């Protein structure tokens, strides 16, 4: 089968701008992307540079992007890529702005953020155990496979918030934090939750785009873990009152009162005095009939049912 590859090339030591090599190649559709990278190096240009080590989808070093999709080169079959995108494929590093050479990126920021959440177990371990330390299956299940993360960074480099906010810890660090906050043996749950509860760096800045869930080659669902961290922050009483936490709580209050949201009131409740900065915007919206006045606020039919359900089904206090 014939494919046309556009391959990103850049050497930070010598090049001012990157360029793309166009290579036509006949491939065996059963090949994985890494086979193709090898052939580019062996048959096209020996200076072509990429990382790989295990060839079994467990070391995380071979992550690249194919047509914008983050992927482990050693795991992803060409036939699936062709089915998704056709036979014109663009191969790029996971992050163009961090490139050192061709597919190789500088992961320093990734590792620094990863360390922030203390990626190790904090537990009293018997140095001379007489028997295995057994965790019941239902406790192990709570990890929801978060211990399968191979730190490939696919989710991190796919995350749009990482691109625009340097402080933001990003999905891989959060998923790692959850790996320990969900572990019954860990003593540092609150400490970790406090680290991820900070505005700017923490879980409240996630835009909920699901790019990380889509990108993760191990199907770990980092955004799912982020939601769990949100839940734990409330459950453990770690949540500070700020615009993000009040925003979440405000939904319950609004639903209880009207069934549907009182959008204006929700903004005011979340922002507190900061709501004043929205006045110019609110005026523009008002002029266009985009603001409902409190006395016209619509309510759901059968509101009593909703009130009752909120009362009997709420599991969290704040």
């Amino acid at each position, binding site marked *: 089968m014939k494919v046309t590859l556009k391959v990103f090339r850049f050497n930070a030591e010598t090049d001012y701008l990157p360029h793309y090599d166009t290579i036509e190649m006949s491939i065996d559709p059963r090949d994985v992307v890494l086979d193709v990278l090898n052939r580019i190096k062996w048959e096209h240009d020996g200076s072509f540079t990429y990382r790989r080590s295990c060839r079994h989808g467990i070391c995380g070093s071979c992550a690249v992007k194919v047509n914008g999709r983050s992927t482990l080169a050693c795991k992803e079959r060409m036939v699936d890529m062709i089915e998704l995108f056709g036979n014109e494929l663009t191969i790029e590093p996971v992050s163009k702005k961090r490139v050192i050479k061709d597919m190789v990126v500088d992961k320093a920021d990734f590792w620094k953020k990863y360390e922030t959440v203390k990626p190790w177990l904090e537990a009293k371990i018997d140095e001379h155990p007489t028997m295995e330390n057994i965790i019941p299956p239902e406790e192990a299940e709570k990890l929801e496979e978060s211990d399968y993360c191979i730190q490939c960074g696919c989710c991190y480099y796919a995350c*749009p918030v990482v691109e625009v906010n340097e402080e933001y810890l990003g999905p891989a660090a959060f998923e790692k934090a959850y790996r320990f906050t969900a572990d019954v043996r860990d003593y540092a749950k609150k400490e970790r939750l406090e680290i991820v509860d900070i505005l700017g760096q923490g879980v409240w800045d996630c*835009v909920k785009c699901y790019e990380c869930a889509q990108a993760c080659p191990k199907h770990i669902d980092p955004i799912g873990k982020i939601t769990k961290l949100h839940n734990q922050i409330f459950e453990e009483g770690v949540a500070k009152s700020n615009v993000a936490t009040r925003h979440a709580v405000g939904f319950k209050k609004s639903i209880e009162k009207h069934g549907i*949201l009182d959008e204006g009131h929700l903004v005011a409740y979340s922002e507190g005095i900061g709501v004043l900065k929205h006045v110019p*915007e609110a005026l523009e919206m008002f002029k266009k009939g985009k603001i409902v006045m409190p006395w016209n606020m619509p309510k759901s039919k059968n509101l009593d049912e909703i009130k009752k359900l909120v009362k009997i089904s709420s*599991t969290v206090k704040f």
Partner: protein
Amino acid sequence: MSKLRYALYTGCTARESTPELLKSTLAVAKKLDIELVLLDEASCCGASHLQDFDDFLSLVLNARNICYAEKHGLDMVTICNTCQLNTSMTKLRLDENPELKAKVNEKLEEVGLVYQGTSNVRHFLYALIEDYGLNNLRKKVVKPLSELNIAPFYGCHNIRPSELHHHFNRSKENPYNPTSLDELIEALEGNSVDYEHKNKCCGFHVDLQAPKTSNMLTGTAIADALDNNADVMVTPCPLCHLNLDVKQKAAMKTLGRDLPYPMPVLHLPQLIGLALGCTPEELGLKHHVTEVPV
């Protein structure tokens, strides 16, 4: 084709800050002879924020909304990507987990309801494509949009996570290269603009706590559409619409880009309605902060 009937879950935004979305949806349904039964009993889906606070409560409330579609014996359609995400995610979790379903039903029974799992939940966009069909839609076009370069903005929660999307829709959208909106634009004889940010996030969900992030993402999408000569953007999500339309000036300012011309941002049914010959009034085109020249 027998008459199509759906239970319409409007969500909150179409009843408040984007009244034009509800208006134009009803106008388009009327033109296409699709019957929409409004679920006035429904509550807010939690918009992915209630879920952060109280997951179980959000499951109960979303299940209750679906119960009302089931009572009518109809599939539910949504007109907001985030409503679609939260409703369909609830449905999938309950359908796959009998224990959880039983726990939720225990609460619902207290108000005389039972969640069964009989109604499908899809965004109006995919109901149109899958049930009405683009060929049938093409036949209804009276004002082709051939003069317009239209940039589709898909919005995250309709296309990601793809497992969820694929579970509920026959059109298996590729989240890295979605095509449904492009195909719909072509069916209306418009020119769909291909641009990198069409499947990216607008940042709406952090608008309050991280306005800079939100503005950067919105601004980048608008700038990308502008750079690819779009005359107008269209989105199936009212939350994306609020960012792209209401926050347009602020977003471009944060991005540090001047707008050579304001970019009108249409709701999906507004665009369809234009091609079907609905009037600007029927489509609520005067409700936009970034004016729509008609």
